[in-house]
């Protein structure tokens, strides 16, 4: 299995453990990841908030580069990037917008690229196939946290179901884990406010962690670097808002599966987390 790969900025920086685990897992599953050449930032929330044309042009360039490279399918582990790329693709179905963006890019853009997130890649690979490779069953009770960007807007992303999604839970069950039915699967963690409004992030992420803790989750499983850094890196700020601090780790789905397949903690970047991971 060979597939295009767009890491996105956070995976090369503050969330490189996500990148490491994705790469390690892909290797273990014999999936060849072909990185998009000279890729740029998708613009994330900033571009989206500040200027529409910019918010379309940046992702458009990424996809144009991929098309140029002859890729047909690209996996985007970062939920934020995934969302921006999918939405841009949808917006650019509009003739006028597309022509405008193409004249900005000075580069052809077809818009027929298949953009998928990590869960979809693993789904395509098959929970069953993964099961057969499990050496260290992931015998933990965890809360799968999807956040906003993976499932909304449903009309465009068409991924899983918008309330109480299941795809991550299925994968976890596949590797021997048990998943919680909890309340905050798709509530927002504060996403883009990580730096600018840490107070709000602490509040929102606090609610999420609290519910997971109340239901005695051993870990929170995520597929989005923004969620992860808010729930993990901001844990200090979060715990300040809570009566009793919470110490449950926040790990990526790729790390969880990696562990089950017997990949080393270091290789999966588990050492890079703020909240120590002992699973």
């Amino acid at each position, binding site marked *: 299995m060979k597939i295009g790969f767009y890491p996105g900025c956070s995976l090369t920086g503050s969330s490189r453990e996500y990148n490491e685990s994705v790469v390690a897992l892909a290797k273990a599953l014999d999936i060849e990841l072909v990185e998009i050449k000279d890729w740029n930032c998708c613009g994330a929330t900033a571009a989206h908030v500040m200027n529409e044309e910019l918010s379309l042009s940046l992702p458009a360039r990424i996809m144009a580069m991929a098309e140029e490279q002859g890729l047909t399918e690209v996996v985007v582990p970062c939920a934020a990037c995934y969302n921006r790329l999918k939405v841009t693709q949808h917006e650019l179905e509009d003739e006028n917008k597309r022509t405008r963006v193409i004249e900005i890019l000075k580069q052809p853009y077809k818009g027929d690229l298949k953009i998928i997130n990590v869960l979809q890649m693993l789904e395509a690979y098959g929970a069953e196939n993964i099961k057969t490779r499990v050496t260290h069953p992931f015998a933990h009770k965890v809360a799968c946290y999807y956040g906003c960007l993976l499932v909304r807007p449903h009309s465009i992303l068409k991924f899983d179901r918008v309330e*109480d999604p299941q795809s991550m839970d299925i994968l976890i069950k596949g590797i021997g884990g048990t998943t919680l039915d909890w309340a905050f699967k798709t509530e927002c963690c504060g996403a883009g406010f990580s730096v600018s409004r840490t107070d709000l992030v602490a509040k929102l992420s606090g609610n999420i962690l609290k519910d997971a803790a109340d239901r005695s989750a051993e870990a929170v499983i995520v597929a989005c670097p923004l969620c992860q850094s808010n729930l993990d890196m901001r844990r200090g700020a979060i715990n300040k808002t809570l009566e009793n601090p919470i110490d449950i780790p926040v790990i990526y789905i790729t790390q969880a599966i990696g562990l089950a397949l017997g990949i080393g903690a270091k290789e999966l970047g588990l050492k890079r987390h703020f909240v120590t991971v002992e699973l």
Partner: protein
Amino acid sequence: MSKIGVFICHCGENISATVDVERVAREIGGMEGVAHAIDYKYMCSDPGQTFIKEAVKKYDLDGVVVGACSPRMHEPTFRRACAEAGLNPYLCEMANLREHCSWVHEKSEETTEKAIDLVKMLVEKVKKNKPLDSIKVPVTKRALVIGGGIAGIQASLDIANTGHKVILIERDPSIGGHMSQLSETFPTLDCSQCILTPRMVEVAQHPNIKLYTYAELESLEGFIGNFKAKIRLKAKSVNYATCTGCGACIQKCPVKKIPSEFNAGLGTRTAIYVPFPQAVPNKPVIDRVNCNYYKRGACKICEKTCQVGSIEWDKEDEIITEEVGAVVLATGFDVKGTDFFPEYGYGQYKDVLTGLQFERLASASGPTFGEIRRPSDGAIPKKIVFIACAGSRDPAKGIPYCSKICCMYTAKHAMLYQHKVHDGESTVFYMDIRAGGKNYEEFVRRAIEEDTVNYVRGRVARVYEKNGKLIVKGVDTLLGGEQVEIEADMVVLATAGVASCGSELLAQKLHVSYDPYHFFAEAHPKLKPVETNTAGIFLAGACQAPKDIPETVGMASGAAVKVAALFSNDELVREPVVAVVNRLAPPLYSTCVGCFMCETACPYNAIEHEEIKGRDGSLIRTIARVNQGLCQGCGTCVAFCRSKSIDIQGYTNEQVYAEVMSLLND
């Protein structure tokens, strides 16, 4: 050369005040083909009519024009007069000199001239009129009522009490419908079953009602007064002739865990079952999908317990044919299930219920014998939340309409809860309170003021479970959008009322039209609420749109009256204003080319294909034929017809052209 009599009415002074009636009579008298023209003070009076009758005989008239009021007023009067004088009534026409002339114009030359023109116009028309016979259709005085809920029960009883035979079919094993599931009814809080069950028994015992339960309509052919209904009697696997309804078989049946439809899934039933204790008929059927014998060919315990040997394993569905003159549709409605609401947990929380399920909890005959207890753990909920407009008024969910009954039953539910759980707290999330109806608003106020139900204006975003509580995240829009979070023990969704399953298919079998939500469409939104646009088929109750019990009963009685009126004569007499396809002598047969544009135009499926065969039986051609029982005489087909082969009696091309010409040629 025609001999037409013209009679100009003064209508006291109503016409003569602004129209020079003498002059009208004089000038018309001079018209070619007019044998006699007079004016008189009151043409509709006895002496007036006598003038007409005598003139018809004296001048041997072959046409009559009465210049008076609107034909919508007195056309029948004058046509009857002509008929009594031996002139075909359809050779009599009226010129509207009052509503369309004298009353709307000042006294003047022009007004009189207009009056003359109007009369001339009708004279020219009458010259082209042909004698017509009103259409007589025989009437089978037996009605078919489809659906045994309160609507069907009421309609059946009302029709039966007029002395006519009724065939009532119900697809479930018992009649009673949703009303039999209800606890108390608003706004009086009287027990639903107490008022319903006597009616159910009356139906079963009524000499004029033939009841088929566990039966569905297979097909319907024919037209008003003359329908042929094929009915499928689903195999009950129990011989009702011998079954005593002792219930021993039910006691012994080993399959006990089937969710009970009657209890909206809150209770269970056996495979051989009677839906509920007061069922009519009170005899069991075997649910073949769940019965051990039908599933794996072994068990037959019921057969062993049955003293009278009523179990019929090999019984098959039976198709019977009944001839009926009218049909009443009373198939009711369904409610959406809790699994329709992702934001409220896809129905995965046991203590999130539909309104209908709450009815069962509150009902003395229900699974908890009328005590409000949580399905999950049997505990009595101390905090309960009712969510109105669950699915209704929600285009995103495909249901933009208001289900109408929810506001009232939600108020009732909250009230019943407060009456049964004195230390309980109830909250109702609503958008608007629609309590139009006698004592309805007062009822809701009572819930709020006396029973201290907490009404919060706003919708609920989501419901989720946390340590045995249901967390309800709502809002109070009257406080500028303040979020409201309630830890509830039970949540009741006033789920949308939708067309009962299979409505679409049934509508197509009957050729009645239905709306985008599969509710049956009435013939006219204001003036024909119980008729469908297919003559002889009527509507009762919630199959037309969500309704409460009083409305349903009223509508059912309305439909019954329409049926009784239809049955009040042996033959259906209809104005011969119907379309006809011309027929000519062989080898032409007709100018109809068989394009069947008329068929596409006809709203009543009245166009049939007539095959013209030679002596040897070989098909010569296929032309259109109008079924006069179905045709309502709109004439749309006439305008569609390319070859001018179809025409409408009373408004033929010839006639209307004559009218137009007379208005323009002078």
